[in-house]
């Protein structure tokens, strides 16, 4: 770094001053944000979804251009207009959604952009050697020749981190790094981050998981609605205080479980020995489950263990190789999504922007997509515009969707409001079965509370809910009964959720512990255990 006057230990290595960013649809993502990080600290950036944390870091990394404001790194003002600039100044980012090319190898992904060469030829051997050395140095070993598409999520994250480290980043930004990890993998990550801190790196991590923030960080900065509320030393602030700063009010995070029905209710959703092989991988292995009227069956598990495929098969978006699905006593196996919906099933999809809405269409058009050829919206042939308008107004009011008009394009709403549109549509047809896949992902606490309320309310009229949720705390607090999926199998079933601990479930989620398959099926289906 050259001879400099001895920097004080508390001199900021990074200062973002007066950052303002407005998106084309009018959304103010950051408003006059000033954010300061000291060298060698682990600094957490927290806030609800939509608070502006990711935008701020995108500005830092050159993925977004701020409308106002300036950035200082190591005391000098810098202009960051692309990731290249950010990397040059020593900033490395590990994104929430991994930035990896699936068909390329680990080594190719890590050296991408700075490939070792012999002339114009790519020097593969040198690249793989570099990866091995890097892995050793930081204690994050990976197999350089493996294809990314073959490698598990925890390893992919390591590759992301190594990518940043390889370019000499000493300021590492991690965006929601534990969203896709098991409790054990999270521990390993925290160990690695702590040792990186000891080697002199500075770490910024974005999270909404306050307990992790408490455990890992030195200081925490809270954002709300695009503004900085405050920066505190982590050991001087409680989780409750932080949460209050994030939301602006006291939030009691105690979602309510539906009252368990008196006796075994009618089985509304039955899945029997589903098997599915896709691209050579056995993604669903003999999966069986049943959900009864008035209850919530939770599905815990790290993403990527068959939950998505299970939902696709149940809702008719994918066929299965063998097995059966029964909805309200009707055979739904292999039927089309439309036919299954007609049996009384509603579905809140995991990726609402891809499946849940058509973002350029209006709110009303989105609200009728599951009843566009039924009364009162249609007589089977023509649409009844007045009825559609009435229905839209009714649903907008009932589900508190913040909008100025039913004609507004859905894509311009906030994440929470978009999810409300989806829920309004799916819940208002009086469904018998609801498949809720990550229903609170990416939405703020206020909207999350509402979603939980709607789910529990639905059970009161006898609806059966299958809830897939990667947030263990959330799924445990909402479910009457619980299963755990690992590598396409149901590895555990719990009749009673009260009294279970997250650590114990974590063991099942990672495949370290497993119940006998027969026991699982039998006890879930209510048959006597042999």
């Amino acid at each position, binding site marked *: 770094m050259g001879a400099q006057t001895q920097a004080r230990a508390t001199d900021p290595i990074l200062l973002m001053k007066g950052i303002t960013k407005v998106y084309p649809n009018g959304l103010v993502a950051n408003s006059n944000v000033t954010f300061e990080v000291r060298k060698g600290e682990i600094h957490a950036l927290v806030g609800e979804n939509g608070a502006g944390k990711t935008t701020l870091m995108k500005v830092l990394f050159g993925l977004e251009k701020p409308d106002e404001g300036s950035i200082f790194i190591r005391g000098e003002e810098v202009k960051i207009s692309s990731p290249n600039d950010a990397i040059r100044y020593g900033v490395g980012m590990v994104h929430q959604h991994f930035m990896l090319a699936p068909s390329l190898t680990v080594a190719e992904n890590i050296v991408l952009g700075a490939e070792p060469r012999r002339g114009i030829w790519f020097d593969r051997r040198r690249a793989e050697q570099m990866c091995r050395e890097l892995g050793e140095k930081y204690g994050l070993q990976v197999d350089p020749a493996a294809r990314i598409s073959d490698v598990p999520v925890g390893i992919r994250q390591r590759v992301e981190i190594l990518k940043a480290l390889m370019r000499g980043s000493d300021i590492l930004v991690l965006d929601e790094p534990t969203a896709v990890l098991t409790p054990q993998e999270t521990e390993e990550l925290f160990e690695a981050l702590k040792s990186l801190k000891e080697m002199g790196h500075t770490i910024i991590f974005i999270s909404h998981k306050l307990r992790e923030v408490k455990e890992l960080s030195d200081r925490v900065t809270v954002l709300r609605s695009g503004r900085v509320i405050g920066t505190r030393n982590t050991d001087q602030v409680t989780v409750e205080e932080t949460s209050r700063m994030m939301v602006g009010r006291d939030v009691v995070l105690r979602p309510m479980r539906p009252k368990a029905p008196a006796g075994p209710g009618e089985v509304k959703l039955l899945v029997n020995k589903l098997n599915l092989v896709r691209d050579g991988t056995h993604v669903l292995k003999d999966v069986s489950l049943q959900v009864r009227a008035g209850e919530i069956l939770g599905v815990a598990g790290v993403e990527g263990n068959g939950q998505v495929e299970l939902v696709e098969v149940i809702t008719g978006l994918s066929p299965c190789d063998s097995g059966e699905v029964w909805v309200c006593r009707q055979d739904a196996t292999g039927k089309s999504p439309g036919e299954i919906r007609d049996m009384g099933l509603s*579905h809140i999809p995991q990726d609402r922007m891809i499946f849940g809405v058509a973002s350029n*269409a209006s709110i009303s058009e989105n609200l009728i997509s599951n009843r*566009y050829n039924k009364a009162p919206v249609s007589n089977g042939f023509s649409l009844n515009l007045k009825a559609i308008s009435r229905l839209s107004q009714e649903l907008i009011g009932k589900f508190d969707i913040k909008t100025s008009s039913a004609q507004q394009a859905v894509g311009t709403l906030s994440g929470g409001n978009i999810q409300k549109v989806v829920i309004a549509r799916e819940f208002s047809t009086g469904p018998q079965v609801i498949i809720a896949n990550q229903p609170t992902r990416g939405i703020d606490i206020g909207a999350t509370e509402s979603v939980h309320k709607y789910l529990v309310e639905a059970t009161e009229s006898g609806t059966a809910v299958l809830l897939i949720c990667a947030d263990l705390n959330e799924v445990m607090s909402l479910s009457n009964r619980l299963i755990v999926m690992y590598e396409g199998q149901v590895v555990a079933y719990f009749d009673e959720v009260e009294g279970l601990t997250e650590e114990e479930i974590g063991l099942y989620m990672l495949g370290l512990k497993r119940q006998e398959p027969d026991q699982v099926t039998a006890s879930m289906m209510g048959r006597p255990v042999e």
Partner: protein
Amino acid sequence: MSRNTWFELLRTGVAIAAALTIGFVVTSLVSESPVEAFGYFLKGPFTSIRRFGSFLEAAVPLTFTGLAVSLVFSAGQFNMGAEGQFFIGAVAATAAGVFLDLPPVIHTIVCLAAGMIAGAIGGFIPGVLKARWNASELVASLMLNYVFLKLGMYLITYHLRDPSAGALVSLPLKESSWLPQFTRTTKLHAGIFVMFLVVFLCYYFLYRTSRGYEARMTGQNLSFARYSGIPVLKVILLIQVLGGAVAGLGGAVEMLGIYRRFQWQASPGYGFDGVIIAILARNNPLLVPLAAVFLAYLRVGADVMAMYADVSAEMVSIIQAVIILLVTAEAFLAGYRHRLTLKEVKQRASAS
């Protein structure tokens, strides 16, 4: 008018102005007296009743193909087959008009139906290939254009040819099949009523029926449509069949109203112009006739210019291409729009 609509109008206007400017520049590179030549281009269609008539006449087939393309584009399908469907529709109508012997109005209707069916088959093939086998409807429809062109010419040359005529033309269509013309000086014909009817039907279909809703949502977001229970494969097939039928009908109308005898040796090009019209009209059937009139105006203007000046008519394709490129460029003028939005946000913030 919403901010969005106003903005789209502005963008379209600027795009057209820019395209005309570029057209003028090209004209001046080629012509000895560019201002005069371009003047013929811009004023041409208005310089005589006959020209004005021919410009309205040209709008009719363009409306049909514009509707056909708007239908398939609404469902997110890039079926470019309007060209071939129009052509084969004209051939089918010619065959029905030449060989069948029916009372007046009925004969017309049968010929129009023949055109629709032929066009529908033309839309069906890429549609079913896409629906059953996910084959690119773009490549399939383009290939089919060539196939229909060759097939149509084969039928005209070997089965419908008029041996007594000098050139390669078909036998004349029987008078009982004709769509009557209105005046002596122009060739405006009753097909224009058919056209307006079809415009209305297309609009009603897309925006007021459940099937039309299915088509539009499929075009907006295919995954969303499937998830919602829309039978997307059926929708994709249906919309391409409908689009083909409309294009084929257009070919039949052109044959029965204007030519009454098949004379083309190459494809008249209405199909590709239909793409431009659909883009300008934003796939809205009610706006298609307006866009068609504009394009017809360009076409006739170019012909007049070619007749009186030293610039060949193909210059108009440069203007058309620039219009497509600019109108569909989302980022065109987006920077200006962003600054407007920023200003608005600041005003709102300082007011609160």
